[in-house]
């Protein structure tokens, strides 16, 4: 059973989404108005998907979406009456997986949620790859920096410096990056 967290950011049509969800056989595990700390709520409730019902997503909603995407990533589906393509772009950029304008029909909810979940998964995979790439590049730069420092300190060539660092790392059961960080820290200390 899908765990749904429903956020109502609408004064007028309270309950329209909930009614449709119930009709389609979904269960809402938690429901609230727009709250200041959505990531904390997500951490407590652990939903599979977050649905936001909003007449027009304002700055506050977007901010919460950005925070959730960063700290507690989940598929987010936004149901709204806002037609403005600029707002839609803004919402997608903030981390919304699906942006649905008007018309909440019970029979359309399942495919909408399916698409949102699939889209979210592929985004997450891409994000993880990008993160791995950034980390590789960052580590490689730190290792290069440490190697350069060591070459100067020991007056040795590149290959010798790498060998010294690796031997040190292995005999202390560490990774090369850890020894590189120690060399950089030591060199900063000794200035």
């Amino acid at each position, binding site marked *: 059973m899908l765990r749904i967290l429903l956020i109502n950011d609408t004064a007028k049509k309270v309950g329209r989404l909930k009614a449709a969800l119930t009709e389609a056989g979904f269960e809402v595990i938690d429901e609230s108005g727009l709250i200041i700390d959505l990531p904390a709520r997500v951490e407590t409730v652990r939903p599979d998907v977050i649905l936001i019902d909003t007449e027009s997503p304002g700055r506050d909603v977007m901010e919460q979406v950005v925070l959730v995407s960063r700290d507690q990533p989940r598929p987010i589906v936004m149901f709204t009456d806002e037609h403005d393509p600029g707002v839609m772009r803004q919402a997608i950029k903030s981390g919304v997986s699906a942006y649905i304008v008007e018309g909440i029909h019970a029979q359309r909810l399942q495919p909408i949620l399916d698409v949102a979940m699939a889209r979210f998964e592929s985004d997450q995979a891409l994000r993880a790859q990008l993160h*791995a*790439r950034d980390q590789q590049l960052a580590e490689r730069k730190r*290792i290069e920096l440490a190697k350069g420092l060591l070459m100067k300190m020991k007056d040795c060539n590149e290959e010798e410096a790498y*060998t010294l660092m690796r*031997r040190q*790392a292995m005999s202390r*059961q560490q990774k*090369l*990056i850890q020894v590189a960080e120690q060399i950089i820290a030591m060199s900063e200390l000794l200035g």
Partner: protein
Amino acid sequence: MNETSVGPLAWVNGSDAPEKRAINLGFMALSDCASVVVAATQGFAQPYGLTLNLKRQASWANLRDNLVSGELDAAHSLYGLIYAVHLGIGGIAPTDMAVLMGLNQNGQSLNLSQGLQTLGVTGPEALARHVHQSRAKLTFAQTFPTGTHAMWLYYWLASQGIHPLQDVNSVVVPPPQMIAHLQAGRIDGFCVGEPWAASAVQQDLGFTLATSQSIWPDHPEKVLGCTREFVEQYPNTARALVMAIVEASRFIEQSAENRRSTAQLLSAPQYLDTPETCIEPRFTGDYADGLGNRWQDPHALRFHGNGEVNLPYLSDGMWFMTQFRRWGLLREDPDYLDVARQVQRLDVYREAASAVGVAPCGSDMRSSQLLDGKVWDGSDPAGYARSFKLHALSDDAPLLAQR
């Protein structure tokens, strides 16, 4: 650092960039996983844009399942495990597999319990006498039904006139649990990779009867294995992975200090979790068998040998199939050469080896003489599989009729 002519970042930025950058790399807690651990932790993969995440596995069966399901992208694997999955032996559906490179040669051994030593069973003849005269069957452990340890155990026993499937019982025990089973008296002997034999000797629980290199000097052992789908989907990743591990293998063998510090790294809790004193001696070829003999082994565990260890020879892969056939694990002869050509990715290996300045030997086969005097060069696999006095070929009748 051995820079290639194009410079390492060319691999990251150019069209040769790996399609998949984060790799889950499986290994078992054994000394011969060294090149995989060194490659992953000592910055050998970063220049090629790869991050290697090491995943220790509890047993070979676990490793196999995770490799087939895609949980692991590639793994430190038994030669026989990859071929068993490819051929669908052992109750699992066949999955096309690939051997990207050889990880090591030598370094396994056949050991007997302290109990047998007390009975004076300390050599091959005494063991054969004991097996043929005693009423209770001895129990020998290996690590995987089609694995290299099973094949070394069977080959050695058969060379001493002991039928491994009739004269003794055989059980499967994951390498790190071998000592506990020996201690509990559940097994009388076992064939395993280091450091588990050296640990048994050091704890006076057993002694080494034969090393695997005494069966076949410089025999194939562990390989870097993956599914064929992985190589085909991520060819650049596969090549970069081989480049990183070949470079790590070369680094380990560059000096005695490098070997020693590799042994120190391996003893860490997250890898072998074993005292360095159980790893280093045999890792550097210093053998003590527990019977008072000590020697420097000329064919000790090796990882590179200028690339000789790393080339996935077709004849190495075919040998395991001949033994599967000999012991009835294959009911009929496969097309040995064709299967080996599918599995052994000489193309990926040769490209990677050239890129890191390792001479990629031109020959696809090699010739070796095993302890029973037989020569294996890959030329007549079906005939070779049938040439043994002791065997379990399922179609005995025509063979007997020919005599």
